[in-house]
């Protein structure tokens, strides 16, 4: 499974988001690859799920076809991210 952490430029915030996702995955004992990038590149990764700011969800829906998008308000809030990861796993089970 490949998860994408997306922010505006792919240099600062998305790196923090990636680290928090990795930590949350470890707590949930789920294996996944996490990559961070910026808005413009998000479509080129073929990710299974995209984690990003609520502000970017609309933009990413247009850029990435059939993307599963999970908004995160605070990029270093592990509990918020755990909640979204659980939702993602449920969504995948329901396919």
């Amino acid at each position: 499974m490949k998860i994408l952490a997306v922010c505006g430029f792919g240099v600062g915030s998305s790196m923090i988001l990636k680290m928090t996702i990795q930590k949350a995955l470890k707590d949930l004992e789920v294996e996944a690859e996490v990559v961070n990038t910026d808005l413009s590149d998000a479509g080129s990764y073929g990710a299974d799920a995209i984690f990003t700011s609520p502000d970017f969800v609309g933009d990413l829906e247009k850029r990435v076809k059939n993307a599963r998008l999970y908004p995160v308000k605070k990029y270093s809030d592990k509990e918020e991210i755990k909640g979204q990861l659980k939702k993602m796993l449920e969504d995948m089970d329901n396919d």
Partner: protein
Amino acid sequence: MTNVKKEHMQIIDSAEDYEKAIEIAAQPLLDDGYITKDYIQQMFDTIEKFGTYIVLADKFALPHARPSEAVKKTGLSLLVVKEAVDLKDNPVNLFIVLAAKDSTTHQDTLASLAEFLMEPKNIDDVINADSVDQIKTIIDERWN
């Protein structure tokens, strides 16, 4: 790259708005030639364009912009504002300005900052510190 240099840390009581706070936070980087004045404007523009996701945790923001000519050297500066500043409906007491010359050199530093931020107590301890020396000690112990 190490974490924040002591000379790049400041504590103030209040700031009139978040733009003023970011300007003050970035001043040591400007004075030491890490950034030009353009970078400060670029950080404001980023907030206008992309919103408030730079508020990465409660009370904490990481103002930054894209790597550009306005960054001469990769660096970080830190500002504690004792009275929370409103950043578009998010109260913020701790600002860490990131100036990145490229998209790679600061990655290890950010990875360890991420670990530091995941523990809310770390942020509170920095905000409640009485001096820059205390902040430096907290950061050196827990963010490395």
